[in-house]
């Protein structure tokens, strides 16, 4: 976690000197990544069960 913060700390000051479209790209990527993580975590139990069902059906 501290490593991530260190990386952000080094990256963040430089971001304002990137072109506008690049900063928009970084922002969209960050938001989509966070949403993806949230979705991944939220749906994880359901996906686990689905994966288990598929595994047991395969064995049967």
């Amino acid at each position: 976690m501290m490593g991530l913060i260190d990386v952000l700390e080094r990256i963040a000051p430089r971001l304002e000197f990137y072109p506008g479209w690049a900063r928009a790209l970084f922002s969209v990527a960050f938001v989509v990544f966070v949403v993806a993580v949230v979705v991944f975590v939220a749906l994880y139990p359901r996906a686990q069960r689905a994966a288990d069902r598929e595994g047991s059906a395969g064995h049967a």
Partner: protein
Amino acid sequence: MLDLLDRLLPKLGGYPMWARSLFVGAIVLVLASAGTYALYFNEASGKQDAAHISIDVTPSVLTEKAATNASEVLRQPQLSKDPFDAHLDYADVRSGGHAHFVPQQDYLASARAGGPVKALTGLEPLPWGAANRPAVLDVKVANNTQRTLFFTEAILDVRRSAPDRRPVLVPTVLLDRPRRLTVVNYGWGPARDLRVTARVPATDNGEARATTVRVGTIDHKGEADLSRAFAAAGLDVPTLKRWEAAASAPDSFATPSYRAELARVRAVLAPFGLDPERGVELPVEGELQYRAGNRTALAALRFTAAIPATQPLGLGDYQPPTARYETTRLSVSGTSYQRRVPLAQRVRPGQTDRFEIPVSAAESSEHVFRVRLVYGPKEDVVSEPITLDLLVPRQP
């Protein structure tokens, strides 16, 4: 990372299609962002460094050595308190974050405020030496980066240059032009429809009556004949003009008509406390009105001047020295000795001449001497006795 993917990938099959699309989209965007970040890293770093280098430019006070007229500045230290002789500087008048360097000069400030300004006096219009100085850009740089910076060039990116056609009018009294006010334009554009309104105080302390003279458009120089203003004050201008004609005639000094005109002009000037031998200037107040460039509005400049009512006695042409000889060194102490200076000066019949002989000594000393100019085998002309207290500072 690979282990993580290895553990996550088998579970992706259990997520709905939209979630899997979201994951793929997130991965693509993250990869694109990483690529963009790497691609523009150098450029962004350069800009970041540049943001840590500050530059500021202000007008600088000019040193005498850097002045274009350095020799004049060094030779003639500023002794006059006349606003016209004040040095030109530039001031930064910032507005809205935009630097604006404007000239600051005492006369210019008075003139642009509409006056009053005091007219210059001389035998001819003078070059404006005090204002003939360049604007100097004083560049200050601070380097707050971790790198050493070595500036090899300064480039002035000029977006626009345009001539300033505003006239700069300076009322000037030329001593050999009685009752006239000369208006010299030191600006680069004409002053149109120039009118000079002048008031000369009357002898009875009554209110001075203003008279106006139309001069027209002046590009460099114009002249207003204020004889009507002098006449309105009670001066007998025709008598003054007859005297001026008599005084300017060659070899007229001993003629009866000259003496008669001199007596008459003395009588005319006496009520004003003037005399051709002691001074003939009268105080004049007035205003210049003109249009600058293509503007239709009238600009005004109030002035005061001491204008000669007539031709004074003893006014001659300035004659510069025609030669300067080698410095002659006097003894610090001694009696009855001579120093000879070889000359080569020709003075034609009826002509005059002027030349310079510098003298010095090893120490501060007092010298009493005469100057004798030899012009023939046994002919000479001798000056009156001269006492010279010569100052030679002892150097530490």
